[in-house]
């Protein structure tokens, strides 16, 4: 047993972090939001060229041939920098949707009863309904888009549409929907982890710089304990997510999603608190992490479903 990252895994993570720092730094993230928060076509293509979507396709099919642990490390980085778009759905559908692996197609996620993100940019929809999955595209997708109503989205990085019932549209069934759901949940948990870690860093940095009562606020125990609590949350979730990526055990994945959702939401809230009034402004990034974390918490596997799955495993 060696739970440490391998050298290759470390290199992959660093490479992804550098790529994103170069192509999607804070200024660009902010500009993307000001521009309506959609998917950036050029960036999407670049991510495709870098292998993000083909990461788990076998090399014989033109993929990178890596596994879930590597995907988790990559989506951890995606979560840190608030990269928008249905990246996970696109990776999961890379084998089924033409052009998805190369970043030439965008695959959005549709779950029964929830608004659909990035519908206008989508070339295909991954429809998830219980444990069944299918892909909706072409004329059916155009009809669906025509019937959809835009929602004033809580998350400024994710434009949302309310769609009528998804049942009436012809589509291609995908095998092993339960597995897709699990993997989507795990990769979403990885994004939550990145977000939780980023919120912690922002809080620690602010706590070290901002002075009140003649001292950095980070020297006050009330602030210190908030930050320490954030680290504990993030590190506990991290071991759960990494382990679930290795074992692919459904119950473990449910636990990982539950704890990662909690870490991302909890850390964003505490980060906001540490920032004081500044934290409540549009200027600080804190609210962006919180809003995205709330959005992700409702995707692929909700807390209620995760808890039921974990309960069913007991006894």
């Amino acid at each position, binding site marked *: *047993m*060696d*739970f*440490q*990252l*391998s050298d290759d*895994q470390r290199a992959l993570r660093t490479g992804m972090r550098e790529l994103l720092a170069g192509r999607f730094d804070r200024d660009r993230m902010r500009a993307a939001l000001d521009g309506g928060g959609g998917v950036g076509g050029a960036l999407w293509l670049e991510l495709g060229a870098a292998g993000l979507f083909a990461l788990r396709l076998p090399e014989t099919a033109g993929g990178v041939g890596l596994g879930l*642990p590597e995907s988790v490390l990559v989506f951890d980085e995606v979560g840190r920098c608030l990269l928008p778009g249905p990246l996970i759905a696109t990776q999961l559908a890379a084998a089924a949707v033409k052009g998805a692996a190369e970043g030439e197609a965008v695959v959005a996620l549709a779950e029964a009863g929830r608004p659909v993100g990035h519908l206008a940019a989508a070339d295909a929809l991954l429809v998830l309904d219980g444990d069944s999955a299918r892909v909706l595209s072409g004329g059916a997708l155009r009809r669906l888009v025509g019937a959809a109503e835009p929602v004033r989205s809580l998350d400024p990085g994710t434009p949302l549409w309310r769609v009528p019932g998804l049942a009436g549209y012809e589509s291609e069934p995908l095998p092993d929907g339960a597995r897709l759901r699990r993997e989507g949940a795990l990769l979403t948990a990885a994004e939550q982890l990145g977000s939780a870690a980023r919120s*912690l860093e922002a809080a*620690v940095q602010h*706590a*070290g710089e901002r002075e009140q009562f003649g*001292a*950095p606020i*980070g*020297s*006050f*125990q009330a*602030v*210190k*304990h908030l*930050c*320490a*609590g954030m*680290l*504990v949350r993030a*590190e*506990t*979730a*991290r*071991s*759960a997510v*990494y*382990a679930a*990526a*290795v*074992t692919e055990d459904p*119950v*473990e994945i*449910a*636990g*990982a999603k*539950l*704890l990662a959702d909690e870490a991302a939401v909890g850390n964003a809230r505490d980060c906001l608190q540490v920032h004081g009034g500044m934290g409540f402004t549009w200027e600080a990034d804190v609210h962006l992490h919180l809003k995205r974390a709330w959005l992700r918490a409702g995707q692929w596997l909700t807390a*209620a479903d*995760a*808890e*039921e*799955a*974990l*309960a*069913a*495993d*007991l*006894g």
Partner: protein
Amino acid sequence: MDLSYTEEEEAFRARLREWLGSVLPGLPAKPDPGDWPGRRAYDAGWQRLLYDAGYAGLHWPADAGGRGATPTQHLIFLEETERAGAPYVGANFVGLLHAGPTIAAEGTAEQRARWLPPVLRGDEIWCQGFSEPEAGSDLASLRTRAVRDGDDYVVSGSKIWTSHAEVADWCELLVRTDTQAPKHRGISWLAMRMDAPGVTVRPLRTLAGSTEFAEMFLDEVRVPVSHRVGAENDGWRVTMVTLSFERGTAFVGEVVACRRTLDALAAEARRSGRWDDAVLRRRLGRLNAEFRALWRLTQWNVSEAQASGGVPGVGGSVFKLRYSHARQELYEAAAEVLGAGDALDLDREWVLDRLSSLSYTIAAGTSQIQHNIVAERILGLPKGR
């Protein structure tokens, strides 16, 4: 990231399982919780069985009488013994989990030869005399004094909350050997015999009704200078080694035990019909996530220690913080499974555990102190006043 075990590790697990299966049915009945001599004998007997089978001090270095096993093998040992319901370290806690490792890391060859084998055999029980009435969280402000007199220190003062003091043979004792130096600089780490003249133990009753810890009065107790571990006045550094063992690895096996309890709670809830309560059911589900993650966090910490070699790092504080609160939540959930009436019955399983769990956020450094450690030593936030 590799969570699989090597063939060698699996073979080790299989041998251990087989051995546990052969000895556990023959163990004597657990003594009454109030019967301290009985409990000591029981814990010592179990340790002796481990020793004879080659499982004592598994991960201690070979030159400290250990087996030089890898941290992973130690983890397997803790997992399997807990899973099989083997006795817990009990009275051997201090000797095996922190005094012993400290002596192994900091003691001289003679000290290791003198003190470690009896710990491994279960012949000698240790206790920890760190806290004082006026020095708990602020441990370095301790006042118990040791004055040099020839080849002895003469020790006077008092200690408090000393677990297992009633049955211990030795005490890892912190004393002030220089009253002029800044408070962290004048401390020494001594091994004191509990039957030395001048040692008085007065048991304290815990809120759980038992006497698992005690007050200790030291009146001109003579401790040979040769019983000092580490240099004179360098005891604070040695103490940090002790505390890192105490927080780093000492609670690991209990996570497995908590998972067993959680399964038992679910089974009980199913039996009694309380499982139909979705709020309770989901609460147990959440605890499942919690204890699974704590086990993974343990593996993470062990992997890190294995990569860096040696004394566990501050990651132990992260674990200790999360674990101590999770354990309390586990027994809160137990009370709900039992229901309002049975949760008041001390003879019902889990009710005493609920009481004991209250100490977890206090003993071995309170949660507030752990938060300070995480904030200052891991996150690098400025020291407070």
